[in-house]
């Protein structure tokens, strides 16, 4: 069988970017949370806030480190595998990525040291400033990278001359039609990721009776935040969908599993799309709901996949299920946030074991939803790499052979499997060890100024039982 460099490159890109995306999303959420805790500490002087902020800084350090090493890979992917795409779009993409490095990565690197190791060296106010700078860095980074990504979905502000894209309006290109929705949706997804991890870990500590006072504060605060963020995510997602209907109708058809343009479209809760025969099997739907949501009219007409030539149809299976997984988990998140509110009277929130155990399990869901969301949106764009302008095969590196692509695909998978294992293993140890693990330790000189070493938890010793109070 002939190895296809296109398929292999797509798998490789999806794999490395999905691996990478988990960590930045987590970093954004946690860095904002740490800044908030530090701010509360500065404002109230309550040491419980400081204890929390110290613990979550440790977690942040590990996650951030994983984001950095996986990010280096991304910087070269566009050149190695998508050189024609890079060549054509460099006039727009180059400045976006460069600005990300200049305004975000260096900002994060500059203040990270003070955040991680400067607690004893600078005043709480300066420390708070460092935390705010790092958090801003992660948010600025999402601004630029999502401007680039959104432009690939809804290109604007450019014209093509001799196969090369020239920017005619920077404002139109950066603030392209899908960008505001995608940015808001992604930032909220990051907050949800941070929030559910914090809630899950606090819940676990409460079950174990570990530092109850601080963890109750953390849980209560996060649940208030989630009560706002989870429903807001659904609202923004809805707007995002309306925007997509306008600019990428084919993607909506794949998301909703609509094969023929029709009116009064049902919302499919479940179905098995059959691309071969251009139809669905085992449909379970709610009548007229899709039309109602997307056109605000129960009898509205929605475009179907039949309007696109077969070769230009997205791989419906991925788009369709990716979307359902994301929305399903989103609804579950809203339910948990609401349950948190319902359990507040009498403080049952801190004692109801079923709820606490549930929260523990919920901490992985935002990451699954996030990846499912990206799979929806990216596969829904296929076969285009720049919607309507350049296909994936046009963007591919011409000299790339299947063998080369296979080699690096296996290579990255192996490297990431090892690194991921080490990182996650260490992270679970930090969490297991608990919040007070090293507040007692008064280490004379901690010089390091870099990710992960902020936490002095052993990588492979066996003393991991959390301290109980």
């Amino acid at each position, binding site marked *: 069988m002939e190895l296809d460099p296109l398929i292999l490159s797509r798998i490789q890109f999806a794999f490395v970017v999905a691996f990478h995306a988990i960590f930045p999303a987590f970093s954004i959420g946690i860095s904002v949370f740490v800044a908030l805790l530090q701010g509360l500490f500065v404002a109230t002087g309550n040491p419980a806030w400081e204890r929390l902020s110290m613990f979550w800084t440790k977690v942040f350090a590990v996650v951030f480190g994983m984001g950095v090493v996986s990010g280096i890979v991304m910087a070269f992917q566009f050149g190695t595998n998508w050189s024609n795409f890079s060549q054509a779009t460099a006039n727009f993409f*180059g400045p976006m990525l460069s600005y990300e490095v200049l305004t975000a990565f260096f900002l994060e690197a*500059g203040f990270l040291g003070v955040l991680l190791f400067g607690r004893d060296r600078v005043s709480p106010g300066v420390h708070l400033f460092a935390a705010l700078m790092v958090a801003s860095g992660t948010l600025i980074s999402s601004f630029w990278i999502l401007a680039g990504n959104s432009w690939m979905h809804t290109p604007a502000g450019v014209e093509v001359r001799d196969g090369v894209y020239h*920017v005619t309006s920077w404002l139109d290109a950066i603030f392209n039609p899908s960008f505001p929705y995608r940015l808001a949706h992604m930032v909220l997804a990051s907050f949800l990721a941070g929030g559910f991890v914090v809630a899950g870990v606090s819940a676990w500590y409460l079950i174990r009776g570990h530092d109850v006072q601080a963890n109750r504060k953390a849980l209560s605060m996060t649940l208030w935040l989630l009560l706002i963020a989870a429903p807001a995510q659904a609202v923004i997602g809805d707007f995002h969908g309306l925007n997509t209907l306008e600019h990428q109708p084919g993607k909506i058809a794949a998301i909703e599993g609509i094969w023929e343009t029709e009116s009064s479209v049902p919302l499919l809760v479940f179905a098995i799309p059959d691309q071969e025969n251009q139809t669905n099997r085992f449909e379970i739907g709610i009548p007229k709901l899709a039309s109602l949501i997307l056109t605000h009219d129960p009898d509205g007409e929605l475009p179907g996949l039949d309007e696109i030539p077969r070769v230009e149809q997205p791989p419906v299976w991925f788009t369709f299920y990716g979307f359902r997984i994301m929305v399903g988990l989103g609804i579950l998140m809203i339910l948990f946030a609401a349950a948190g509110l319902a359990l507040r009277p009498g403080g049952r929130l801190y004692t109801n074991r079923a709820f606490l155990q549930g929260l523990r399990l919920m901490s992985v869901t935002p990451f699954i939803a996030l990846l499912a969301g990206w799979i929806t949106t990216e596969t829904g764009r296929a076969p285009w790499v720049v919607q309507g302008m350049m296909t994936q095969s046009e963007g591919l590196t011409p000299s*790339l052979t299947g063998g080369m692509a296979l080699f690096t695909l296996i290579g990255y998978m192996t490297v990431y499997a090892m690194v991921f294992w*080490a990182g996650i293993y260490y992270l679970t140890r930090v969490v297991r060890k608990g919040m007070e693990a090293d507040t007692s330790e008064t280490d004379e000189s901690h*010089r390091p100024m870099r990710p992960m070493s902020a936490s002095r938890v052993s990588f492979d010793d066996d003393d991991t039982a959390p301290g109980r109070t």
Partner: protein
Amino acid sequence: MDPYVLSTIWAIIIAFSIIMYVVLDGFVLGMGILFPFAPDEEARDVMMNTGAPIWDGNETWLVLAGTALLGAFPLVYTVILPALYIGVFLMVAGLIFRGVAFELRFKAHRSRPLWNVAFAGGSMVAAFAQGAVVGAYILGFETESSTFSGGPFDWLTPFTVMTGLGMMAGLALLGVTWVIMKTEGPVQEWAYRVAPRLLVGVLVVFAIVSLWTPYVDPEVWERWFSHIRVIWILPAMALFCAALLLWALRARRELIPFLATLGMFFFTYLGLLVSRWPYVVPPNYTLWDAAAAPESQLFLLIGTLFVLPIILGYTSWAYWVFRGKVRPGEGYH
């Protein structure tokens, strides 16, 4: 602004980020290369501690060089990366292992030997790949209508293996002189002993590459042996730095060996640039062929000129905070 001037400014900025990366990450990689030869585990701890506070920021210069090339000279990015496809993978994998080892080695006890291997191996592979990139660059790239048209292993030739090994020796020298500057006692003693041997190795490779380069490319021959004679000042300066280094090692100076090695790197790098100028994708494309649209270069330049000084501020500040010697037992455990 005149597109000609704009491209020239960009060439300078990118050349600057590349040399920043080479020397800043270079001494850290160099310590990784020397890792297996360090006298004992304590020396390894000390070495790692000297690099620990700053390696992460150093690596960001590589990312900047990459993205700025895409922004200012996309052709360089889109020809060279496909041409070095396998090499780039090796370099990135090396950097990942090196970075993760940096973070996790100190927390490991039982698995520490494994992290030592990851640190040393990652650094060696990354350094070799970077040296091979330089070699491949000197040799030039096979292109067809603005895309790379050669094979996956074109970059791997006896010449590039030579430059790869040369880079390893050079970075090891940079690392060892950094160790001299940042440590004392037995670790420093060891570094003083190793440095002259590395210097000999570097000079041998330097001589071979210098003689070989004009031979692989007649244009370079032209330039060095008939046109502009003044450029001989560059290798002369590099050799002067080598002599200075040798003297400083004998005299047990602490700061000068590192500075002299930086000088060797700097003049060799300039020598390489003038051999090729203005070709950025040798042998066919010049700076101006490779340039992005002027409006893109300008859009990016405005922000860069504003932000770059601030970044240099952070960097110097970080080095200032962590100035002074690192002693055994210091740092985190």
